[in-house]
């Protein structure tokens, strides 16, 4: 029986580039041929969450949220808008960063939907953060002499938002690859504004845990960190701030290896995509075996 992958992302009414990472990762996965169909869907764009399933022919669908944290969108909005019958967040049995998947029926199309946890809390996301650090420094072995800051929005809307950031920061710290690893936030302590205060290392890679580049990653964070007074004039990578070289990576979600995390989510829910995972890791520079724990 044919299986489809549907990616659920936020999208934007204002920013044309918000959907770009979603399209890019969908294209990477589409090219593997692992699914009969791969469909992008958006909260703010089209096809909407409400109407994506009816555009898909397959009876069985893997639905993967391209969101960073577990919470409002993944537990309320997406299941409601996709009309997943009998959804209950308890089905994921998550502590905020350990969502699994649940198999449900879509009320309007009768399709079987394997509803997966978001990419942002999957273990393999730690690999993408590290890879982002490699991309921005151009050094596949980056770590020695470097600090790594994982930046998130904070708890303003959702307490799990900070949990996801801390979860990956902890995991990467345990690998002992970077001299220091610290989670920073936009709207709570420790704040990204004071990035230089939180590191001893001369070089600091800053990776924002956001899906798409936009207002926060392109305007707020660079200005808050003092990379530039005006985002429109741009900034250098690295930029020296208070004696530290700041390597600002931009949204982690634009890293090609993100496609792997989408596939990992589907694989955890039972999709037979192991060769696609291998292919994507190979193509996107993530060929090293995932660090299991």
């Amino acid at each position, binding site marked *: 029986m044919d299986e489809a992958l549907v990616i659920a992302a936020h999208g*934007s*009414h*204002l*920013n*044309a580039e918000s*959907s770009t990472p979603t*399209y890019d990762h969908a*294209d990477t996965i589409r090219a593997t041929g692992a699914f009969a169909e791969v469909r992008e869907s958006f*909260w*703010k*764009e*089209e*096809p*909407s969450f*409400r*109407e*994506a399933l*009816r*555009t898909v*022919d397959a009876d069985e669908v893997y639905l993967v949220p391209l969101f960073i944290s577990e919470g*409002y969108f993944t537990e*309320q*909005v997406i299941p*409601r808008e996709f009309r997943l019958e009998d959804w209950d967040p308890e089905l994921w049995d998550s502590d905020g960063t350990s969502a699994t998947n649940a198999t449900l029926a879509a009320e*309007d199309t009768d399709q079987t939907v394997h509803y997966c946890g978001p990419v942002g809390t999957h273990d393999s996301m730690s690999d993408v953060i590290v890879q982002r650090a490699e991309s921005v420094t151009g050094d596949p072995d980056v770590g020695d002499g470097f600090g790594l800051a994982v930046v998130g929005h904070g708890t303003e809307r959702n307490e799990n938002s900070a949990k996801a950031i801390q979860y990956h920061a902890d995991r990467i710290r345990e690998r002992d690859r970077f001299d220091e690893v610290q989670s920073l936030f936009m709207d709570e302590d420790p704040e990204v504004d004071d990035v230089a205060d939180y590191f001893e290392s001369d070089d600091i890679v800053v990776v924002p845990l956001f899906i798409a580049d936009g207002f926060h990653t392109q305007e707020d964070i660079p200005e808050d960190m003092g990379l530039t007074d005006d985002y429109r004039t741009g900034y250098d990578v690295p930029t020296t701030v208070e004696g530290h070289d700041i390597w600002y990576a931009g949204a982690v979600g634009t890293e090609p290896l993100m496609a792997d995390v989408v596939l990992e989510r589907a694989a955890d829910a039972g999709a037979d995509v192991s060769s696609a995972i291998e292919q994507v890791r190979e193509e996107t520079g993530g060929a090293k075996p995932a660090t299991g724990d």
Partner: protein
Amino acid sequence: MDGEYVDALVATAPDGIAFDDLHVAHETDGYTFQTPDVDHSGIDEETLRTVAAESPHVRNWYFWHATAPQKADRWAFLRWLEGAEQRDVAERYDALADGVSATWGELHLTVTLSDGARTYSVRHRADADVGTSALETHDDPLDAREIAKHDDDGGYRPLKTAPSLQTGWAFPELSAGEFVTTVDAFYPATIANWHREREGELDVSHWRDTVDRQTGIYGVVKTWDRGDGYEHVNWVAEACCDDSQCLKRREWQYDDETDLDVDGGSGTFPCREPCSLVIAGARKWTKLEGEETQTYEFELTPSEKEQIEDIIDAVADGEAEDIREADIYEGANRYRTRFLRAKLFDDEGNLGGVETEQ
């Protein structure tokens, strides 16, 4: 290729075929093969193969069962495009040789038959008569996602069905499957919802159902509905859902018993619920409409009052940018408007020197 459709016909004949004026069966005395032009019975397989190889009806049957996408809505859409329910196969094949076209939103769709095979093309309807060589051609259906992102001026299009699709491109040669993917990339879910409506199964979600479902920052919109009045929703529909703003035909109403007074438009494909742009707008209006009116007093000449009306019309109709720089006969002309501001605003930007907060 020739062998393929004949082989398929022979393989399927025992089950019987009755499709688009083609009737084939396998009985004890041999095969029967009927179209409006030929009528054979008791023929052997070799004769069947010879007859079938020459028959457009067989090619047509094969296309619809082995080449065309089989999902019911995609299939119906392709049938609709070539007028399959109105024309018999001979008539259709004559027409298809010259190309059969239809409009879908701002898309100009064409199916053409050459060497017995259908090819499809998509371009902007404004480019219907433009030579393909003058257009930027594409063969990947997913290129439509990028084309659909920006209008001719480079502005972002958050609403795919806004009548602002850019021109200057063409997908000149697509297979049936690529064709529906292309159309669906330009106008997502329109084929599915059009088909549901034709089948009497469109699941309309009216204003009340839709706002009741909202949570988070959009939850506030439900408070905009007070009592039985729905005038505010008329205004929303007039503002956002008019054909000049969106090419979907609005089928949602206030609720399942109360139709809005505003026309839903004449689009080919339906709109089954208030979209995310309508809800985002409604959130803002819910807050704005919570304000009490106040009486402000300032004086305008009759021409100034009319000019303010002209400016509102020009902005609302998207015509402000089209008014020529020196056309001072237009109320919304930039110089005219700057003069009005110079005369009527105080240093704080208050109209008539009257403060907003009183």
